[in-house]
């Protein structure tokens, strides 16, 4: 048997989800408990390496005694809590949130969203042809990655990854307010004039494809991007002695994207510019 060091033992607490008993360690969120119970709650802004921001509100559930719905991703489970995940009320809000997003943002590269739109019978078109949209053009201002803010749901994950939760570079923030709020660098400057260090840790957490490798962006534009033909192989970066784990996404023997496992003890999903983008030399094959 392998002995792994355990932290301070956590108490278990009991509550009910959809009438069934759930037992989870103290500090777990409702979403953790739902996932442990095999329930599939849709989420967009939740990230496994980030503190919940609960901005998208697509994961809302009903909690007995609560005036409003609560976000499963951030609300901690409490003893005796009665959670209902699939009530008409919760489903209504999820449907509307999906409709509001789909009617204002390009969700074409957001995984699973098409499935959810169908499941919740969302009809984003019903807001009419004049419904306000973001109407942003992709920003291609460097050779490494592209910011296509027409696909941005403003989940704050990139801001949090760039900021105090991981990278501490603080190159981006949300600027402006309300529907006009956008992710921006200081003074709305191009990325190349900003504090950005091109670690790509924002791409790693982006849930919609608004941030993508230039290689992916170009291949999608050319119609050659095909994830079914890609392999993912995890190896170790060769650029310094820290030992970051890289997952190389390879299509037709070309590295097209690099990620890192989010549960890796060295990286927690983060890389630097060299690890994320410095792979080209192996495929300068002449």
């Amino acid at each position, binding site marked *: 048997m392998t002995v792994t060091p355990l932290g301070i033992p956590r108490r278990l607490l009991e509550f009910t989800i959809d009438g069934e008993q759930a037992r989870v360690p103290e500090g777990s969120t409702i979403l953790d408990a739902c996932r442990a119970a095999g329930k599939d709650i849709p989420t967009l802004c939740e990230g496994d390496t980030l503190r919940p921001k609960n901005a998208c509100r697509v994961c809302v559930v009903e909690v007995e005694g609560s005036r409003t719905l609560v976000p499963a991703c951030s*609300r901690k489970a409490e003893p005796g809590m009665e959670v209902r995940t699939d009530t008409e009320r919760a489903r209504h809000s999820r449907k*509307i949130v999906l409709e509001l997003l789909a009617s204002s943002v390009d969700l074409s590269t957001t995984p699973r969203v098409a499935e959810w739109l169908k499941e919740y019978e969302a009809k984003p078109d019903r807001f009419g042809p004049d419904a306000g949209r973001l109407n942003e053009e992709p920003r291609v201002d460097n050779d490494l990655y592209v910011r296509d803010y027409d696909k941005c749901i403003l989940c704050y994950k990139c801001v949090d990854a760039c900021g105090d939760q991981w990278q501490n570079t603080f190159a981006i923030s949300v600027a402006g307010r*309300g529907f006009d709020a956008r992710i921006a660098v200081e003074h709305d400057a191009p990325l190349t004039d900003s504090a950005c260090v091109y670690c790509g840790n924002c791409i790693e957490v982006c849930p919609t494809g608004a941030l993508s490798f230039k290689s992916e962006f170009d291949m999608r534009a050319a119609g050659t991007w095909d994830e079914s033909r890609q392999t993912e192989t995890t190896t170790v970066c060769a650029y310094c002695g820290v030992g970051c784990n890289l997952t190389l996404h390879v299509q037709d023997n070309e590295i097209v994207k690099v990620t890192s496992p989010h549960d890796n003890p060295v990286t927690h999903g983060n890389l630097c510019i060299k690890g994320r983008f410095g792979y080209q030399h192996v495929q300068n094959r002449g």
Partner: protein
Amino acid sequence: MDLHFGDSKPTDEERAAVDALLGPPESSWEGAARDEMRAADLRWARGGRAARDRRDLLLPGLHAINDRVGWISDGALDYLCRRLTVPPAEAYGVATFYALFSVRPRPATVLHVCTDLACAAAGAPELCAGIEERLGPGSGVSVQRGPCLGLCERAPAALAIRAGDPVRTAVSAPATVAEAVLAASAPDSAPEEPPAALAVPQAGQDGLMLLHRVGVVDPASLDDYRAHGGYTALRRAFALGPAGVIREVTDSGLVGRGGAAFPTGRKWQATASQPDHPHYLVCNADESEPGTFKDRVLMEGDPYALVEAMTIAGYATGAHQGYLYLRGEYPRALHRLEHAIGQARARGLLGDDILGQGYAFDMEIRRGAGAYICGEETALFNSIEGYRGEPRSKPPFPVEKGLFGKPTVENNVETLVNVLPILTMGAPAYAAIGTGRSTGPKLYCVSGTVERPGVYELPFGATLGELLALAGVRDGLRAVLLGGAAGGFVRADELDIPLTFEGTREAGTTLGSGVVMAFDDTVPLPRLLLRIAEFFRDESCGQCVPCRVGTVRQEEALHRIAERTGAAAAGDIALLREVGRAMRDASICGLGQTAWNAVESAIDRLGAYE
């Protein structure tokens, strides 16, 4: 922190504005000149915790620049960031959050003209057009249409702000084109605002508990305040001890006057008992609900009352530092309170040893900068801390993790001022006022089609009709908006609604923050609703989807049906209901949760679009 700065440099003016707030930079790394005097800087530098812990000076710093120059340039922002060790991108996010700031060049003088409910009904659109025509192009004045300025009793209102050293402001209300233009072009020679007491039709009457000093005392004079009963409550508080004060407040039945009606004693007790320290006291004076102006009148007319009440609240809850978060559009309240705090400090009524009781308490004013959302308690914390004024998710609640992550009690101005009579008259006598579940006196901001708009103080339990009669409601009343944009409409035949928390709730409406806005049948209802929808769209912080996009969809639908009724509007009304329900259920904070209330009540109660 390894911050990145561009090439933009601050002007001497901008640098001076920041240095006036923060003092001169201590090292060349912070922006001092890199000369021989600073050779030691190249051997030893500090950039750690202390340098990072000054983030809460960001908002005051942005004000300092904006006040001096009128807008915030790249160079000025970078310099402020260097001084405070704040990432420029984050500071940019903060600067662009607030309506009073601009990161684009603009004239030094900005004339804010209110186009909100009361002012719109009082001719604001014509006023704006007239001002723009009179000023003409290149006038050096930027005219901005904006939300409620809290001057509804004198609608229509305009506020001129001229950047400089010092910044000048002038209020014109009720504004005419000529007066507004004068205020903007020569703020120093604009006529002085009428005294606060003019906003209190009851001023000087007997029996007032909250407004009794307004118009009676000199708001600048501490002695006059004390001559009128000032600081007897604090003395009583020291005699009772913190637990005794909390017991009195609990027994008085006082509940929060900001709209949520949470029992104040319970909130204080919950904060006082938190093991984590320090505790903070925050006074929410970010009075931004359209139609509300009672806190302004209190602060302008009786500023020491708030200082004393905050001291008592701090004492009871174990706080030694209080923050007064004041609406950025309230220049006179700012001056009165700055003066009052200075006087109190000079007399030992703030500071290390108040009244010789060994209790230390001091307070700071933080100015808002044009964001309704900052009236939400956790958004207000973020704003003070130097972040975007976005609400936090609850739990954890402020009593546990509030300002700077510490236990914090937050009350609005009216709530705090109620503590004074509670302590001077005793909880039982106070609790005898009003109804069983709504005790004490209540302030109402009456505006719209009434003869005597202003702040009224009545015991809980008076009916809407009694209040409107007092204010001299005009003929042809069509509807009354209770609680402001986040509240709801009632009909002219519902004037017997008792003005209590439980009474309004039973009637299916809300007391909210005490807005009572009367509309006669000359005001087109769809335009009113559209204005409310615009307000929420403008003021949504953008953090959560239901509110950020929902308020836009709501406004779009109301646009579509502005001229429609009946079957032609039915589809969009159904859509509004669906979106409204999701906003109410799934938004993070009260802004989104209430953004559909007024519209819904207009449809259901007033039969709008029928």
